[in-house]
């Protein structure tokens, strides 16, 4: 019989007067992995942060509930008690490895500081301990203890964070979306690390995530949260094979996207890119040639009417740069032929004619809409530029149609972007792109910032709009599941080169290159 480590009963959390978590109860046994799963805003992070009492009090408050750590009440405990618990009994790792480390201090120092300040060790033995910890989390000797955070990659920083969290050998590690900001292949490594550490150190793990793939491979028990409540709790196998609650079923269903509708393989080519190169100038001397970084190196591809071309790769592989260069938003070399017209030599003024046919949807639903324009102004902007002959009334009726096309209501026209959720904002971005009836839309990670269930809705919408207006998508994503649901043709990129390209089904089912196989592995079966 294992011992109860954490017992949370009837926990509620309120910010000012808004209840965000209501009556949540769960427990964690020693050495166990519990996953809190839910979409953004479901209260999973807030529930977890309540355990070490790290919410912004007194703005946040607990109307009810009790949190017991090995039988001792943490709710309402004094600062001294909590300080003793945080770090030594319970520690945390966060989602964003880029901002979790202090950029001005060496990584080794940031870990030693923690040990020395907590009077665990003196300075010399702390240094030894850090080296030991770095070995433990798989940071090899090439990573110096006196490196600064900016010298490390995202995955390495997350490892440093984990080393820091493990420094005092906590009994519980709370991992808040530990892999969300990382590339798929790195995600896999971090998950493997967490799993092996847990086995070796026998600590409990509270995993907070929206990513069911992560949960499936790691968690023993799962709590599914929705709008501040736990709707279903059970062991992992049972939840994945026989979910009971509708919401859990809905979440699981959203994960499996169907294959894209067939496209006619004989359709004509609307755009062809030949030997495209993009070089960023990264430094310039007074005399001599500027230093450049090749972001895209000699890419050639063809885009056919009615097709979706998927471009996949890890961050830094040049996929977004490629999309931008095709839209002529970045200077590039090589040929871009669009509907029989050579675009690469056009001046900005002559390019305006083609802007109508080439549109883009961005990743960040919060950054891509101007906060000071109404929805109607945002969508109507393209019409104002390309069809100045329309009067206000005609323009508005076209905008209204576009809004209905993307599944929003017309009474939303006069509202501002901040009143909408991420998914709705992404719909507005899509409406802005389709209102001009373009031929080609570059989709730059349009679903990456969204929750899984919203992702699947957006994927459905994209298919629907594609069929209705005969659009061609250049779909850029690192999320292979979404790409699989949309792409007819697939291009795999790494370091600016095309590693592999071919019919989507073929590439997914029998990848030729080792790198492609690695990507597929990491995306579809994280821990074997």
């Amino acid at each position: 019989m294992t011992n109860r480590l954490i017992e949370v009963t009837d926990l509620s959390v309120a910010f000012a007067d808004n209840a965000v978590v209501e009556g949540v109860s769960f427990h964690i046994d020693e050495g166990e992995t519990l996953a809190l799963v839910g979409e953004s805003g479901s209260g999973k992070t807030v529930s977890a942060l309540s355990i070490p009492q790290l919410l912004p009090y007194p703005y946040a408050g607990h109307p009810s509930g009790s949190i017991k750590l090995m039988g001792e009440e943490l709710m309402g405990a004094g600062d001294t008690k909590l300080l003793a618990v945080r770090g030594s009994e319970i520690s945390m790792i966060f989602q964003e490895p880029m901002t979790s480390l202090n950029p001005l201090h060496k990584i080794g120092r940031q870990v030693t500081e923690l040990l020395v300040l907590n009077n665990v060790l003196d300075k010399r033995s702390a240094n030894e301990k850090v080296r030991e910890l770095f070995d433990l989390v798989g940071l090899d000797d090439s990573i110096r203890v006196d490196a600064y955070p900016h010298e490390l990659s995202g995955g390495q920083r997350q490892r440093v964070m984990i080393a820091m969290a493990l420094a005092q050998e906590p009994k519980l590690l709370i991992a808040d979306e530990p892999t969300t900001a990382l590339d798929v292949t790195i995600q896999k490594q971090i998950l493997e690390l967490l799993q092996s550490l847990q086995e070796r150190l026998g600590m409990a793990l509270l995993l907070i995530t929206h990513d069911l793939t992560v949960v499936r491979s790691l968690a023993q028990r799962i709590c599914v949260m929705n709008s501040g409540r736990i709707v279903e709790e059970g062991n992992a196998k049972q939840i994945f094979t026989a979910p009971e609650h509708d919401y859990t079923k809905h979440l699981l269903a959203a994960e499996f996207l169907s294959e894209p509708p067939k496209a006619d393989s004989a359709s004509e080519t609307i755009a062809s890119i030949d030997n495209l190169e993009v070089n960023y100038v990264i430094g310039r001397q007074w005399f001599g040639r500027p230093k450049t970084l090749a972001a895209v190196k000699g890419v050639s591809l063809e885009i056919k009417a009615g097709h979706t071309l998927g471009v996949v790769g890890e961050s830094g592989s040049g996929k977004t740069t490629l999309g931008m260069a095709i839209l002529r938003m970045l200077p590039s070399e090589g040929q871009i032929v669009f509907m029989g017209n050579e675009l690469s030599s056009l001046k900005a003024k002559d390019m305006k004619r083609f802007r109508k046919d080439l549109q883009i949807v961005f990743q960040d639903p919060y950054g891509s809409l101007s906060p000071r324009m109404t929805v109607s102004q945002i969508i109507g902007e393209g019409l104002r530029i390309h069809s100045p002959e329309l009067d206000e009334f005609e323009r508005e009726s076209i905008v209204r149609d576009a809004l209905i096309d993307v599944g929003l209501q017309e009474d939303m026209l006069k509202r501002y972007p901040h009143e909408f959720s991420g998914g709705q904002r992404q719909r507005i971005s899509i409406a802005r792109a389709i209102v001009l009836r373009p031929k080609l839309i570059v989709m730059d990670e349009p679903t990456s910032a969204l929750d899984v269930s919203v992702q699947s809705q957006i994927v459905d919408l994209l298919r629907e709009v594609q069929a209705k207006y005969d659009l061609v998508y250049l779909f850029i994503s690192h999320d292979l599941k979404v790409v699989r649901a949309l792409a007819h043709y697939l291009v795999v990129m790494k370091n600016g080169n095309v590693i592999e390209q071919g019919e989507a089904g073929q590439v997914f089912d029998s990848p030729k290159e080792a790198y492609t196989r690695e990507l597929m592995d990491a995306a579809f079966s994280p821990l074997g």
Partner: protein
Amino acid sequence: MTPLAQRRLNQFTSNKRAYRSLWIFLTLFGISLFSEFVANDKPILMYHQDELWMPVLVDYSEKELGGELDARAAYWDPYVENLVEGSGGWMLWPPIRFSYRTADMYLGGPAPRAPNSRHWLGTDDAGKDTLARLIYGFRISVLFGLLLTIISASIGVAIGALQGYFGGVVDLLGQRVVEIWSGLPILVILIILASIVEPSFFWLLGCLAAFSWMSVVAVVRAEFLRTRNFEYVRAAKALGDNDLSIIVRHVLPNAMTAALTFLPFILSGAITSLTALDFLGFGLPAGSASLGELLNQGKRNLQAPWLGLTGFITVGVMLTLLIFIGEGIRDAFDPRKTISGSGFK
């Protein structure tokens, strides 16, 4: 009104100190706008020879009123008063019977006179009523400050926008020009210029505007540098929008918040500059009512403390009010404070 603007307005009005300061300032400014009706050496309204006259708006000669001289009527003269009231007419005077340039002929002692029932705040060393000069001086200071703020903010926003939006060489050259330009000693240049040209209101306004636009450039440029890479700006480019339209429609509205919070502080800075120039004697033409001139009078006539005290208190109160208002506006635009006012950070 957008919900955001509504929230900011609520935030501002809930800041009692700033809100009250705004009302006090607006009241004072409102009164001073009608200085001619508050402090003047002419009646507002006059009934004479069965007709209504408005001496405050129209210059009548003494002859028109039935007197002898073919010159502007001096209504404070007992002769004119007698002329009107002796024939059964009446005169409605402003509360203060002196204009900023009226030298009182019936002072009853050497100037400057201490405060008494005739001159509530005394007179200066030319026998002119201090309160009247104060009211007119306040008006000219605030109007000057407002105009200077509008002009320098427009120049600053335009230059900051161009620098921030285009970046690169434009930004590099622009920043160097701003640095060199802001290194020039403004007061010394104005003093040199004042020895060549006779300074007037608009001449001073132009000179000060030429040197006061730099503070806005920094904020607007920074906002533009940040905003120009946002996806909504790139989306506008992808739509084929031209640069001018992107700057004006997409970036500027988002960058204005930062500039707006600066305006009240620029306003108080502008008022201070004008007062300083007037104090040094390089400001508005001699004889104009101005707060700086009043302070200078106070310095020259230390035996008449009401002059210095009046000037000091007025400038002090005015700048304090403006700073309070400025703080209120700044806080109202602060997104962290607009969440709920509970100080969630």
